């Protein structure tokens, strides 16, 4: 394996001393990372399976003395987790679909149709990225309670999450940048074949844009699943809340083992998503870091 040259020189690494140091550093880092990042997760999963008495005892046990995997099903029933999972799926899935339906055509129009004032529109969208999200919390909340012109109240409706989420300048920017790289010749060929813009978007652009669509989709779904403050504000009706808001609400009254079990269950979809879509998630991460 020829690794890229880094800080430590290969010749240094090849000496016996270098090898020893490398092994020591590697083992320490491995242990530290496991302890810092995986052990807490282990602690939560096993903690959920301890009996309430064992969970409250000091000192804590590393391996449960008795295993109670039934806490998971008990937590599911007691917290009505099925309902809250469904709520969260509706919120995240809807945010995803609305986002794609709104942002993809917009990015396509800005990238390939280049209408008059297109740059102004894009600029106005990008400006919103400079604003700290917190600065818009209250006015957006006030807007959602009484939509301008329409006078609809979106409180307790998932649309209160879907629509503001679609106003995502970052995703439009990512999509536009990808569309910009698609050669104009390809689109012109489609035009000569008699395809209109919508057809071209659907049959030519979307199929070759799968990588960026995957990145944007994942970013949106993960963000919607993790969000807390906005769902907290727009779902005062406890039956409509998402998992995060519900867990926070019941945290004080719930027996600890059941609460921890509920927390573990609420995290499973995100962990699975990460394990499956690692590449897209990490690609989105570095796409997010401004390239110089």
């Amino acid at each position, binding site marked *: 394996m020829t690794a890229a*040259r*880094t*800080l*430590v*020189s290969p010749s240094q690494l090849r000496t016996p001393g270098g090898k020893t140091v*490398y092994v020591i*550093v*590697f083992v320490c*880092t*491995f242990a530290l*990372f496991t302890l*810092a*990042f*995986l052990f*807490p997760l282990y*602690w939560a999963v096993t903690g959920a399976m301890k009996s309430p008495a064992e969970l*409250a005892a*000091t*000192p*804590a046990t590393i391996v449960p003395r008795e295993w109670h995997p039934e806490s998971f099903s008990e937590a599911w029933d007691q917290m009505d987790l099925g309902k809250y999972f469904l709520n969260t799926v509706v919120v995240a899935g809807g945010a995803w679909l609305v986002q794609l339906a*709104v942002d993809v*055509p*917009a990015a396509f129009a*800005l990238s390939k*149709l*280049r*209408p008059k004032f*297109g740059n102004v*529109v894009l600029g106005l*969208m990008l400006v*919103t990225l*400079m604003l700290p999200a*917190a*600065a*818009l919390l*209250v006015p957006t909340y*006030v*807007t959602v309670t009484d939509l*301008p012109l329409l006078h609809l109240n979106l409180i307790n409706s998932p649309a209160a999450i879907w*629509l*503001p989420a679609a*106003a995502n300048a970052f995703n439009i920017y990512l999509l536009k940048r990808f569309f910009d790289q698609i050669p104009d010749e390809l*689109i*012109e060929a489609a*035009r*000569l074949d008699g395809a209109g*813009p919508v057809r071209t978007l659907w049959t030519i652009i979307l199929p070759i844009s799968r990588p960026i669509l995957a990145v944007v989709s994942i970013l949106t779904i993960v963000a919607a699943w*993790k969000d*807390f*403050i906005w769902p907290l504000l727009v779902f005062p009706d406890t039956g409509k809340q998402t998992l*995060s808001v519900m867990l926070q609400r019941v945290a004080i009254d719930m027996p600890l083992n059941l609460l921890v079990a509920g*927390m573990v269950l609420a*995290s499973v979809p995100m*962990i699975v998503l*990460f394990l499956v879509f690692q590449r897209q998630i*990490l690609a989105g*991460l*570095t796409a997010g*870091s*401004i390239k110089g």
Partner: protein
Amino acid sequence: MSSPRSGNVLDWPAVTPRAGRPAASPAERRRARLKRRLRENLTAYTLLCAALVVFAMFSWYPIVRGVLLSFQQVDFVNPPTWVGFDNFVRLFADPLFGVAWRNTLLFTGFALVFGFLVPFVAAVLLNELRHARAYFRLAVYLPVMLPPVVTALMWKWFYDPGPGLFNSALNAVGLPGLQWLDSSTTAMLSLVFVSTWANMGSTTLIYLAALQTIPGELYEAAELDGAGMWRRLRHVTFPQTRFVLLVLLLLQIVATMQVFTEPYVMTGGGPDDSTVTVLLLLYRYAFVYNDFGSASAMSLLLFVALGVFSAMYVRLTRRVE
């Protein structure tokens, strides 16, 4: 196959000259081109209209509304009334206002020390390690995937002075336990740990990506010039990643100034108001006291503070470049 000079590649629909037609006069051709351009723009704006509506309603309008609200009193029954700077005066008179800013700056300061240094060290370290790279990436990023409420509740339980994980660990090695969230001196720092743990995955991996773009020849050349490891770190690694470091530093400051979930879920602002942050106070004004005017004034102050800071930061760092 070059696109026409009009700039638009998509001259829909295809305009092919038809045989047997008399040549169009220049005026007619101009009118045809104008019509075509109109149609193109119409198509483009049709595709854009959904985005324009959501941006107008949930982004651009709230920006304006937020500024207006800062100078209004709103009770949702009567129409809003103009109150000038009353909202700001009320904020300044609130003893918690200063406390909240002080706490937030404290949080941001600590979060930078940890959230900036730890990920950088981790990234440099990971960049050197040749084995189990996928594992390291996975481990460091897992916490980022957890819903922040889960992270906060989980750590609240870890911090429990009795059977909590941390005090159990401390006791196991013969050290006395700490008060963690229950003492006003350590509570804020405890929140910083949570936030660092939860977010360092993304920072670390962004740094790592930046480190991997450094050409190996630079290190080789430095080595040939007799530069040891520390000097290579200082003269190659740092300058080569400076842009990413500076940008992330700014983004982190802006993000940590808006800390909310950890104090809201873990301490509720206590003990003794030691973890009341700007956003927590803003939340209280809006959704506990129902004073949307003052809450908006708070947002405006936060926005101005961060805006001024960002502008200064960009200016200063540009001079450094």
